[in-house]
Each structure stands twice: as C-alpha cells, then as structure tokens.
C-alpha cells in the first residue's frame, strides 16, 4: 500500500520527456519532486506561469510569484508569465500535455467528480473543469477509498461532476488503473497489495487481464 509520497512517485513515472504538465493541489503538487531529472519537463500553473521551479529560499520569497495553490515559488530558466486568458489558451488549446489532479470520485467511463459535495461549503471548481474538459491526458491521484472505507472508483459518480469521460489513468494507494471502454483496467498493484484487495475496494467495473505486476517505486 502506498502513502501519498508513494502515489506521487508512481505518477512521476508517467511524466515523459518534453511534457508540459499541470499539477493540481495536494498529492499532484508532490509529483514535481520525483520526476526523472534527465528528462525535459516544464510545469505550468494556471494562475499564469510556465517553467515553475521549487519553493524559494526564505530570503527570495516574492508575493508576486505564486502557483495556483497560492504557494510562493520560483522560476526556472526559460520561464514565462502570462495572463489568465492566455493560461487557459494553453489548457483549452491542448498545449499542456498532462494534467494530474485529485478526485473525490471517478467512474469506470472516466467521469470525474472533485469539486462539490452537496450540503457542504462549496469552494468552487477553480480551473479543474477547464483542465478536465480539454487535456488529452488526465491522471487522477487519489486514495482508493474514502475515509469511511467506501470505494472512490465507481460505476457512476454520485457527486456533481467536474467532467465527462475524461480520466485516462488513476493512481491510488492500491493500484494503477487505466480507464477503458470495459471499465477500470488494472495495470499494476501497489507493493504488497493483492488483486483481491483491489477488487474489494473497487465498486466500478474492474478488468483484470493476465499477470498484474507490482509497481516499481524507488
């Protein structure tokens, strides 16, 4: 079973050479720390920066340079700043290659719900609806089950949707799954996790074909 760092490390393997990547708040933000240093990758944040670097040293903190999580950050060589409309031109125009974001629920046809729980304070969707509606490649980072042990991988989302048929891959504390026309296809198991455990924790259609390898995480 993976912890959040483990999920981030596994997702980092999905970040390929020459990818522009948008990272959501939470686990996705951690992914940047584990991407292969030998490939060329640039991180975009939808508030208006491309070429985002690490957090600044204490004395370099600049209130005017933040990411979409409102965290102070730095720029790397080749970075650029731009306005919000241009930022979403990058996203809506499919110039961002990979979006990694969290979710409350994912359905086995790729629907995602991650912005609203009826009856609770709604904070808003931010850029999530634009991201999921446009990105070619969307990976969801989340726990396989919620705090009371219910599956977050469903036949149909119960919460208000963020987007339709958009999630391509899911990396949870238990498994890596791909969304196919037959449902969630199990690709990898987390270290020490059995197929049986994954089956129990998955409410949507689960496809288990052939040998399912264990994830390799450094």
């Amino acid at each position, binding site marked *: 079973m993976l912890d959040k760092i483990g999920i981030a490390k596994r997702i980092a393997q999905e970040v390929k050479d020459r990818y522009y990547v948008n990272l959501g708040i939470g686990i996705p933000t951690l992914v940047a720390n584990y991407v292969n240093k030998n490939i060329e990758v640039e991180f975009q*944040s*939808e*508030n*208006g*920066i491309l070429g985002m670097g*690490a*957090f*600044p*040293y*204490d004395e370099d*903190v*600049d*209130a*005017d*340079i*933040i*990411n*979409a*999580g*409102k*965290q*102070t*950050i730095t720029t790397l060589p080749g970075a650029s*700043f*731009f*306005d*919000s*409309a241009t*930022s*979403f031109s990058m*996203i*809506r125009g499919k110039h961002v290659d990979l979006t990694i974001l969290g979710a409350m629920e994912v359905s086995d046809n790729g629907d995602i719900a991650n912005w*609203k729980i009826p009856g609770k*304070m*709604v*904070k*808003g*969707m*931010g*850029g*999530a*609806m*634009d991201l999921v*509606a*446009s990105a070619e490649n969307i990976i969801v980072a989340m726990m396989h089950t919620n705090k009371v042990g219910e599956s977050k991988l469903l036949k149909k989302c119960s919460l*208000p*949707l*963020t*987007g*339709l048929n958009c999630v391509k891959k899911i990396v949870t504390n238990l498994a890596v799954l791909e969304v196919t026309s037959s449902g969630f296809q199990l690709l990898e198991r987390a270290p020490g996790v059995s197929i049986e455990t994954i089956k129990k924790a998955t409410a949507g259609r689960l496809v288990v074909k052939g040998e399912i390898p264990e994830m390799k995480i450094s």
Partner: protein
Amino acid sequence: MINKKLLNAQEALVGIKSEMTIMLGGFGLCGIPENSISELVKLGVKNLTCISNNAGVDDFGLGLLLKDKQIDKMISSYVGENNEFERQMLSGELKVDLIPQGSLAERCRAAKSGIPAFFTPAGYGTEVGEGKESREFNGKMHLMETAFKADFSIVKAWKGDEAGNLIFKGTARNFNPNMCGAAKVTVAEVEELYPAGELDPNEIHVSGIFIQRIFEGKNYEKRIEQRTITNRQC
C-alpha cells in the same frame, strides 16, 4: 497622448455606486487592487456584484467588503479560505455564481474584445452547463458562454504611465489584463506611475486605450497566503 492620471483611489473611484457590477483583478491575494478595495470600504457602497476569481480572506482583499456586507453576489471560480464568506453563503445572504476559471477569464476578454459569445468545452455535462446552450464542434460538446457586462473594472499593475499603459510583475498579472477594457470604466492602480514615454512601447502588457483612470497606489501589503520555502542545505 491622452492623460489618465489621477491622484489616488478616491479620485479614481468617483462614480461607483451601490448595486453596480464591479470586476476586480487578482488571483488569491496576488495582484489585487489593495488601494481601491480600501476605498470601496470607505465609500460604503452596498449590494455590489463582484466578478473576481477569488473572494479574499477574512481580513484582506474582498474579504473586507464581505465583512461589511457590501457584496450581494460573487461571480468567481474559487472562494475557499474565507469563513465570513461561508457564513453569508450558507445563510443565503450572499449569492454565488461559480464559473470555471478559464471561462471566467475568457468571458472578461470577450467583454473587452466585443465578442458577445464563444464556445468552450469546460463544464459541459456538469451543473455549470445547466440552462446553457450546448453544441457539438469536431465531435465534442461545448457550452456557449457570453461576455460579462460590468460597470467598473479595477485592476492592479506593477508599472504604468500617464497614458494608461500597464506592465505587470510575475503572477500578479493573472486576470488583470483580461479585465482591462471589459467594463464601462477601467481603473488601474499601479505601484510605479511614470510620465508617458518612459515605458518601452514593446514591453507594455496592456495598452492605455483599455484604461480610463490610473493612479499610483500606496503602502502595498502584498499579503502571502502560503509562504512555502526551501530550506538551505548547508
């Protein structure tokens, strides 16, 4: 050169009245028009509709207007981190229209650009699409989104000149350029105001034609929401 220079927020916000719709730049507390927000508090105008990506925090940014119950309706993409906001929303005092961030930015730009409507895939198949016209292009469903209409747009820039030209710094740019020219009157407050001719025409982010009033702001606090740092490894 058409001179737009005014002395301060008080001069620049003349004409703002209760019931108006006001756009305000900024992302979180980054790049918000601090001087103008303070002036709006002083003016005590009520029943405002505010178009702004976020709603500030309890004691800063638009949170100051919320505290004084000056806002009737917020049009935003994300409104977390604000207890007073939550209280007013749950009690029904405050109306909230949540819009995907990219659609929010583009609807501002559309207003500025004389484009009454455009299509975007964001929000199709969700609550956001309810009651909106949808349409297929290239095998994919899209929603029709319309340009905003606002009375005032209030933005914050780094450098500006008397002609109204603006230059932004870092991610304090965000929604500010898209809101310039998107309302009947656009007010820009800047950290540094220069005479016309001091800024390089190639380096200007927003041309003065989109700005009706400009002034140099004071005492910028630039509050940081998440001060994240890297520790030096000796």
